[in-house]
């Protein structure tokens, strides 16, 4: 009997091809939008995870204190953590190593090529805290740092932009007109969280940067310092130790605020992750509005259909169709429409998300959620929007229906 009902339903909906197609279009667009948004949300989440993995998560970040004016917290204060402060941390328990950076944005020039780049003045330990690896050549040494040698280690973007296919090791580039010798290159990391190019980077000893690229009235103070903790479960206790040590070194009295900030990468990861999750839920919620609209479209079309086919319903009943049969036929019509619409919409969404991923150079996952969402939408929308029209058809009095013009 189910087979016969489905067949009758199929013949009925295919009899009005244009109308059926337009109705399906609503559901198609709705499901495609949801699948697309879920894919977008998952892509963002994956990118977040990838980026944090490339940075390392057992990291503590020490920055300048926050300015306070009239009791209102403002932006960053001036640098307050000295190079010596950071070096003093290296001997603390559970700390693998620590490094700091001072930075300068300059044009890097080699021959006729030039490229805008962020130069990090740092220490050899920066490789470890930043999860960097040397691709070619060597990192500058502690001694190079002490004596402020004009050495640079360059990221892959700089290699590509300045040297193309040439070997950069041993070559001299110019930063602010000053010569620097390339002694190493960094392994490629790819794009960062905000689509920023992590490989557009040059590392040089902090002392060199201060002397040759960016002087400062407080030359031995860092913009940001990084501490790599031996394991993630030690983060809290290490953070407390750092705070204690720095307060002592800065001679801060009890009851005064820190003149520096200590942030845990693990906490930042959590924060960004939850923002990412909320974002993707929001996207899916907005997209599902179009699903509701699509479902109203089906209900509307089915109600029109029941009215238009009143005589048909009356005839079927007079010829022996039980009320239930009539109800199931109309329900089957709306379920068929919503099923086909959902599945086409699902494929549309998956294909569009892959095209989008290709276009933006991102890997977009094909999620089981797409299938789960599509199937449940197909069933729920089909039943919900078909129920009322189906009941209306079922309740029709055959005599009235046959009189209907």
């Amino acid at each position, binding site marked *: *009997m189910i087979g*016969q009902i489905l*067949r*009758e339903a199929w*013949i*009925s909906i295919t*009899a009005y091809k244009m109308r059926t197609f337009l109705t399906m279009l609503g559901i198609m667009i709705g499901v495609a939008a949801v699948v697309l948004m879920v894919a977008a949300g998952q892509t963002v989440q994956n990118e977040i995870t990838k980026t944090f993995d490339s940075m390392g998560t057992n990291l503590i970040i020490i920055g300048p204190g926050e300015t306070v004016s009239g009791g209102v917290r403002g932006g960053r204060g001036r640098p307050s953590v000295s190079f010596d402060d950071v070096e003093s941390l290296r001997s603390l328990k559970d700390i693998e190593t620590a490094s700091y950076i001072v930075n300068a944005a300059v044009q890097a020039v080699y021959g006729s090529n030039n490229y805008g780049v962020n130069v990090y003045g740092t220490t050899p330990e920066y490789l470890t805290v930043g999860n960097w690896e040397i691709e070619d050549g060597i990192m500058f040494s502690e001694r190079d740092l002490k004596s402020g040698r004009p050495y640079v280690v360059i990221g892959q973007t700089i290699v590509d932009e300045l040297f193309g296919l040439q070997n950069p090791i041993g070559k001299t580039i110019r930063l602010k007109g000053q010569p620097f010798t390339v002694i190493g290159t960094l392994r490629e990391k790819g794009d960062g969280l905000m689509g920023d190019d992590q490989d557009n980077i040059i590392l040089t000893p902090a002392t060199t940067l201060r002397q040759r690229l960016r002087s400062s009235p407080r030359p031995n103070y860092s913009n940001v310092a990084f501490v790599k903790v031996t394991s993630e479960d030690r983060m809290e206790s290490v953070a407390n130790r750092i705070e204690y040590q720095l307060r002592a070194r800065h001679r801060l009295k009890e009851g005064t605020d820190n003149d520096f900030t200590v942030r845990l990468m693990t906490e930042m990861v959590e924060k960004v992750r939850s923002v990412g999750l909320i974002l993707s839920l929001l996207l899916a919620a907005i997209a599902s509005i179009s699903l509701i609209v699509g479902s109203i479209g089906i209900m509307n079309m089915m109600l029109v259909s029941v009215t238009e086919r009143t*005589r*048909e319903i*009356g*005839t*079927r*009943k*007079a*010829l*022996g*169709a*039980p*009320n*239930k*049969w009539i109800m199931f036929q109309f329900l089957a019509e709306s379920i068929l429409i919503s099923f086909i619409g959902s599945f086409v919409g699902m494929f549309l969404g998956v294909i569009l998300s892959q095209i989008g991923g290709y276009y933006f150079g991102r890997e977009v996952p094909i999620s089981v959620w797409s299938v789960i969402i599509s199937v449940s939408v197909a069933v729920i929308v089909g039943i919900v929007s078909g129920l009322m029209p189906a009941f209306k058809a079922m309740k029709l009095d*055959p*005599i009235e229906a*046959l009189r209907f013009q």
Partner: protein
Amino acid sequence: MAEKLKQTVEPVIEVQDICKTYFMPGGMSQSVLKHVSFDVVPGEFVAIMGHSGSGKSTLMNILGCLDRPTSGVYKLAGKAVSDKTDAELANIRGQEIGFVFQNFNLLMKRTIADNVSLPLIYQGVGEAERYERAVRMLHKVQLNGYEDRLPTQISGGMQQRVAIARALINNPKIIFADEPTGNLDSKTSDEIMDLFTDLNKQGITIVLVTHEDDVADYAKRMIKIGDGQKIYDGLRTEYQKDEE
């Protein structure tokens, strides 16, 4: 003659003291059928006549199990209909009754074979058998070769023949036709009435409603309804107009 037959054969239709009253919103009510009684035995050809609005269609709807009387007893093939559920009535309509309507009521988007075999769907008959039986029925109404056409492609007279084939497909005990020639010209009407006469000769009971005298002439027996009451019941040939 009807009286004589009754003693020997079980009637297929027994109408006993039937009333039908429509209750309208606002407390008004209209008595459309008033204490109507008659029997029909198998093989009869009965014309129900009367002026427009006299209650003929109301009576037909009750006979065809589409409606229930307000009071009185209606028995079809010996079984009282009034205490049956909607589902049981649908089943009776599908198995024991064939309907022919004034405006044919074909599904215009479906093939003629689909239309003819429509009642079989509700009896759970499979697709192949439905088609095969539709072809056979179409042969019976001289429409062989038309099974895969659409109703829009044939004339009104042919459409009514399709409807008759559809009424016959379940091998019903009885066919009810409410003004089956009302939408047809007189020549086509004659063809349709010849077909009914033919079917009646094969033993099918036919009850038809008409207000046209020459259509009623095809029937042996005539029941006349006037203002909701039976005002004549007898041989068509013995009916005198001035009896009213």
